[in-house]
């Protein structure tokens, strides 16, 4: 289990009362103690542009004497609060928020990679991340090398003098392989290559990759951080120095988020620790239930001792999240779909990490147009189901799955 080392103290308290607990951070970190109009919540600031009192104040701003807002694409008050909160939760110095998870990843890649550069990544990942790297970064002359997940020898062998970034998810989607982050960060440092972890499936409640020396953490905040299936957002957390170029490029490319969305994200973050405890509890209970069910061939969940990376998970994670992948015994794609269709509480849909449970068949939802050999290569069999547990009553979710499997 990781320690509760959180650097950020309660804002506005001097000297800090003590190092704040995670739920205190969720409620207060990054926010001003005394806000506009003495309101307890942050105002939603929709302004697209910010006015200057005089020419002198414009010049002061340009000469960086006076930090302030200028134009919405470069940042906004709602964004700053959320960025400070996200940085605190990940124990990072700085965070940058984007319009979506993908916009965040693209924002980082575009800022850090040039034609001729190479990146190496572990092959179990969100299919759109893979698609962006292999189909689109390649158009800009960036070479993407994929190596088997968790195989550090293969990753090291793929490193060349042009390699600029090592990338992985942890846990991976949908196999939930947990990466040894210490080893991952060390490999990067040894070769002087930056490292990035997509920790969306873990969330900063369960793991903080920066603590292990990883350079960047990427989150789709749409998932656990927002937590209510009602907003899209993405973030990159890391050091101020390393993120400066990412922020500058975002200001040009424009993939920012909106004030309304950011307010909802800030509101969602207030219950983040509480929700994660429940997601972890539900995830573990359902994984245990499925393991003992006669219709189940296999369960992928890092909290199970049967999972190949269970020991790394146990060492580095506070809990194991709400995502579970499982295989139905002796079922073709149709019989598998019948289980999905028979669920009454979990709804069929992509995404995860919200209060509502979602369920999907990766073959249908994400890999329908891929040829069978490619699906085999990515480890997506026809009888695979991915369930994203929400925060409903644990027994209700188990009963629902039980009736779906019996039908």
């Amino acid at each position, binding site marked *: 289990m990781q320690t509760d080392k959180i650097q950020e103290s309660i804002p506005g308290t001097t000297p800090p009362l003590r190092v704040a*607990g995670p739920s205190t951070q969720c409620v207060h970190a990054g926010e001003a103690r005394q806000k506009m109009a003495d309101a307890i919540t942050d105002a939603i600031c929709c302004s697209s542009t910010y006015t200057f009192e005089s020419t002198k104040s414009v010049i002061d701003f340009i000469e960086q004497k006076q930090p302030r807002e200028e134009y919405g694409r470069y940042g906004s008050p709602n964004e700053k609060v959320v960025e400070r909160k996200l940085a605190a939760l990940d124990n990072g110095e700085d965070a940058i928020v984007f319009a979506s998870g993908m916009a965040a990843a693209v924002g980082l890649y575009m800022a850090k990679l040039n034609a001729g550069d190479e990146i190496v990544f572990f092959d179990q990942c969100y299919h759109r991340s893979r698609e962006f790297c292999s189909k689109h970064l390649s158009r800009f002359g960036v070479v993407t090398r994929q190596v088997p997940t968790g195989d550090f020898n293969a990753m090291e062998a793929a490193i060349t003098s042009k390699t600029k970034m090592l990338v992985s998810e942890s846990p991976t989607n949908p196999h939930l392989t947990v990466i040894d982050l210490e080893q991952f960060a060390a490999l990067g440092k040894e070769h002087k290559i930056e490292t990035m972890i997509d920790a969306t499936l873990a969330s900063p409640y369960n793991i903080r990759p920066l603590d292990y020396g990883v350079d960047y953490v990427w989150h789709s905040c749409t998932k656990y951080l927002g937590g209510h299936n009602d907003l899209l957002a993405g973030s990159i957390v890391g050091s101020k120095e390393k993120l400066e170029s990412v922020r500058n490029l975002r200001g040009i490319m424009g993939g920012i988020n909106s004030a309304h969305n950011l307010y*909802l994200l800030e509101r969602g973050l207030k219950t983040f620790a509480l929700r994660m405890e429940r997601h972890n509890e539900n995830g573990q209970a359902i994984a245990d239930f499925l393991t003992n069910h006669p219709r189940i061939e296999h369960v992928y969940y890092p909290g199970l001792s049967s999972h190949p990376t269970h020991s790394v998970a146990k060492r580095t994670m506070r809990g194991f999240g709400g995502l579970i992948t499982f295989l139905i015994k002796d079922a073709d794609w149709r019989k598998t779909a019948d289980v999905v269709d028979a669920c009454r509480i979990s709804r069929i849909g992509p995404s995860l990490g919200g*209060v509502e449970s*979602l369920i999907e068949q990766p073959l249908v939802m994400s890999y329908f147009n891929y040829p069978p050999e490619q699906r085999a290569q990515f480890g997506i069999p026809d009888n695979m189901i991915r369930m994203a547990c929400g925060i409903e*009553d644990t*027994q209700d979710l188990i009963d629902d799955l039980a009736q779906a499997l019996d039908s």
Partner: protein
Amino acid sequence: MKFRTRSIHVGAEPDPATGAVVPPIHTATTFIQPGAGEWGKFDYSRSGSPTRNQVEKTIASLEGGVGALLFSSGMAATHGAMMLLQSGDHIVAGSDIYGGTYRLLHKILSRSGIEVTLAPAHDIESFKAAFKPNTKMAWIETIGNPLMTIPDIRAIADFTHSRKGLLGIDNTFATPSLVRPLELGADIVMHSATKYLGGHSDCLSGALVVGDEQLFKDLYFTQNATGAVLGPFESFLLGRGIKTLDLRVKEQSRSAMQIARWLQKQPMVKRVLYPGLETHPGHELAKRQMGGGFGGMITFEIDGDLAATKRVCESTKIFGLAVSLGAVESLIEQPATMSHASYAIVDKVRFGITDGLIRLSIGLEDPEDLQNDLAQAIGT
């Protein structure tokens, strides 16, 4: 479906038009009708709007009622219920009730010739004694504000019904996560949904829930005729907040219990009023009536005058000094000068709303952080 699952799914069925897992926010004030004089499901949004109705359905399910009505504030909801009364009627209300309810009873309803008597709801015999032949309604709180008294809901409901009256109960402090008064015989449940139901200090709202179809129709008629309905954006935020209601209230109850026990041991603290404590006179009743916790509200009295109390309230660093309650952020306040400032001095003295009282609303912060903050503020 169990409580927590209902709080997420009932009323929030996916949008059939788009499949959206979160139903869209309908801002329309008016709706196109099938024909002149023929009415569709919705006509004008004061009379009903899709977004508001969805959340009403959720709240009705959580309280175990046949229907719920959402109002623009808790006071609008209370007033909505009290408009069932007419000139010449009498209402008996608990003696420690929200200051705003006290003001409504004494300064507004009184103008319509409605008479009020306050009596301690936790003292069943005195409460019964306050009834008159023209008593049409009793109004109590699940947990009295700010003295944290516990009324016997079943006993009061039975007595009120024997006098052909209605029992209205403000369930704001307890929430349906801990107590469902309709199951105990109450007729009308009222919420300042601004508090625990919304839970994030960002939407002012009120609710009425009833278990009887005819009573629902009567209340709906009044609401539609007088118009204090909740808007679509607030309805959305309220519905979003309710999805984590059970999680929040249970956690806040756990933290409050820990903090109440700790406060009891502080030499500066004269007494702690929290229904979860064995020393609380209503503890046994609370145990019987409540399930899963005793709520996130604590009142305590310090050994000091108004100024000393004020100083404590002003020196916390995590607790915000503000009225209201039930949100993710912890709040502290002094009832005598803040939430109960509307009480006449004579009633403050009579009912024990003393200068040394401090009311806490426990938020979602780490209880150890909150305890440390109180320690430095009290100066232990």
